[in-house]
């Protein structure tokens, strides 16, 4: 173990890869994602609005959009008034993410529909001016915007416009009924408020007592910590291959110590390194990111469970590194095999894109990634506030993966001996 420690300490570039690079990675990824999240929330989505209606519906939608934080409202394009003709081009040029056009006569169409419905219901003769019509509200979307983002935004806009339309319909209906009362009785015009009937509340399915809002820190710190811990494979592979190339392995095979004893020092040292990495990364989420105005990482309810998952993850990463180092014949092979396989494991494991939004087949494949097991474990602890019992299956999978890697390494060595 002393030898492994000394080799590691004296390899400054290796130490840089092990500790500095992962910390930089967490900083950068969390800040970027948080900045993107904040940009949309604080500045809003740039929307250009054309109110060709110039009546109740158009005016109310305009008023609503002006007041919401969801978007940054524009009704001019380069100092010129936005029109149905120039909105499409402006969105196409990327000046706005979404263009909204409320057509001329939209309010009238809504009112006429309601009046037509009232007179028809009461068996009265329809006024020719009350004939229903349709109005098409156009949403023009920048094709650069991601599909999930567009779906989310347009559904919110549709809901908002639909609420405005319903409100006008209700008011028109209310007025019509009042006008149609024959004895001139004063009718109180009600105020439409759909929120009085159905209300919504939301909460996160978490054991944590405080509110654990999903945010860039809560998601990114565990994800990139696991990614970095598994990237220990690169220096570990390099260490194994160096011993192979410098002839130490020749000596190892002639030493009367078991293979497990020979690799155990390396395993223990690199597991310790992984655990130090883990603590450093968490400290970024707990101390350094909050200094930059980001939320503090919530560690959940069980520090012991966190330690166990981190230890299992460290063993899995180290075992995998030993295996790759044994399989690879050269440093180049080891570097490519190690880094690419970790990238693939991380991609399918949900580090880059959450597994739950993947297609079904990819979700099934993601179950094969040790990074996914570790990530699921940390999410269970950090986001759902669960404990040792709940993360036990993830821990077992990681330890079995480690045992399989070391076992396979031993088999490969035995095969080569023959």
């Amino acid at each position, binding site marked *: 173990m002393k030898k492994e420690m000394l080799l590691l300490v004296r390899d400054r570039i290796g130490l840089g890869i092990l500790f500095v690079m992962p910390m930089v990675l967490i900083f950068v990824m969390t800040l970027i994602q948080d900045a993107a999240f904040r940009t949309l929330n604080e500045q809003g989505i740039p929307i250009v609005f054309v109110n060709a209606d110039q009546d109740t519906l158009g005016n109310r939608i305009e008023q609503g959009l002006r007041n919401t934080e969801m978007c940054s409202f524009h009704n001019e394009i380069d100092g010129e008034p936005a029109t149905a003709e120039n909105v499409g081009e402006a969105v196409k040029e990327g000046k706005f993410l979404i263009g909204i056009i409320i057509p001329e006569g939209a309010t009238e169409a809504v009112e006429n529909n309601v009046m037509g419905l009232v007179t028809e219901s009461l068996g009265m003769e329809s006024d020719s001016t009350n004939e229903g019509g349709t109005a098409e509200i156009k949403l023009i979307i920048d094709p650069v915007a991601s599909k999930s983002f567009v779906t989310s935004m347009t559904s919110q806009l549709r809901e908002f416009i639909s609420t405005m339309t319903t409100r006008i319909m209700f008011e028109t209906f209310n007025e019509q009924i009042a006008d149609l009362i024959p004895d001139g009785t004063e009718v109180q015009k009600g105020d439409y408020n759909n929120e009085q009937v159905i209300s919504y509340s939301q909460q996160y399915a978490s054991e944590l007592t405080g509110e654990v809002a999903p945010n860039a820190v809560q998601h990114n710190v565990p994800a990139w910590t696991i990614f970095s811990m598994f990237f220990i494979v690169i220096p570990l592979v390099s260490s194994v291959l160096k011993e192979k190339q*410098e002839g130490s392995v020749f000596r190892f095979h002639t*030493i*009367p110590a078991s293979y497990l004893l020979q690799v155990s020092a390396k395993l223990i040292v690199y597991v310790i390194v992984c655990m130090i990495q883990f603590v450093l990364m968490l400290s970024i989420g707990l101390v350094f990111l909050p200094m930059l105005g980001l939320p503090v990482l919530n560690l959940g309810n069980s520090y012991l469970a966190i330690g166990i998952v981190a230890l299992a993850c460290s063993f899995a990463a180290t075992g995998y590194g030993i295996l790759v180092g044994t399989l690879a014949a050269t440093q180049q092979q080891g570097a490519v095999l190690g880094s690419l396989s970790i990238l693939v494991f991380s991609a399918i494991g949900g580090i880059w894109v959450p597994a739950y939004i993947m297609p079904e087949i990819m979700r099934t494949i993601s179950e094969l990634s040790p990074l996914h097991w570790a990530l699921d474990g940390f999410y269970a602890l950090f986001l759902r506030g669960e404990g040792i019992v709940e993360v036990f299956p993830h821990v077992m999978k990681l330890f079995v993966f480690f045992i399989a890697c070391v076992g396979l390494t031993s088999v490969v060595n035995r095969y080569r*001996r023959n």
Partner: protein
Amino acid sequence: MEQIKSAPVIAIEHVTKSYGEEESLAVDDVSFSIQKNEVFGLLGPNGAGKTTTISMLCGLFNPTHGTVLINGEDLRTNLAVIKHDLGVVPQDIALYPTLTGRENLEFYGTMYGVEKAELKKRINEWLEKLEMTRSADKRVESYSGGMKRRINLIAGILHNPKILFLDEPTVGVDVQSRKAIMQHLSELNASGMTIIYTSHHLEEAEKFCSDVAIIDHGKIIVRGNPSALIKEHEGCSNLEDVFLKITNTAMRD
């Protein structure tokens, strides 16, 4: 009076080693034995099968066919026990460049199970003998080729093995270092250690070895005492002449 020989410390019987295809035999049906306290030189041109033979003898890999017996024990079935008696000085400098000479020796001595205080004593003794005491606490990467070879040798003998395998122990070494290494190897042999040695330095082998075998194309071509071999081959005045006569002068890959 007929000399009664004890049981050989190494006996290899009909050993064959092939890599992949059966046609490419690195070692082809080789049999020989080595007596205790012998200095046995395994000589041959590049690619002749020397390193493969040595590797099988020290248990690095198993022969494809045949048996290797060390002190009467089958290497294939009793490797763990046999390894305690073996010392290996590989051709490559099997040391960690970023560790000091002393740290390397401490590591290998510990791996061989030498007790800490005893290990420290042996390390100091050997460093002194091979004039490495002053450089022992410098990193191996700063050593000259000769210094690395000396530490490489010490790493293979710290546990006092009964049988020592030396694969080109003096390659790339200056005359002074070579002389020191060979002198101490002779002393080890005099103390009862059996040495199996490969080298391209035929003059060195002629002086050092009590017995040599010349291997080519995976087969032992000739075996005997160097002086006897020189006498047996007409027109040869040294081992190099014998070697060239037997293996031809055509260069090898």
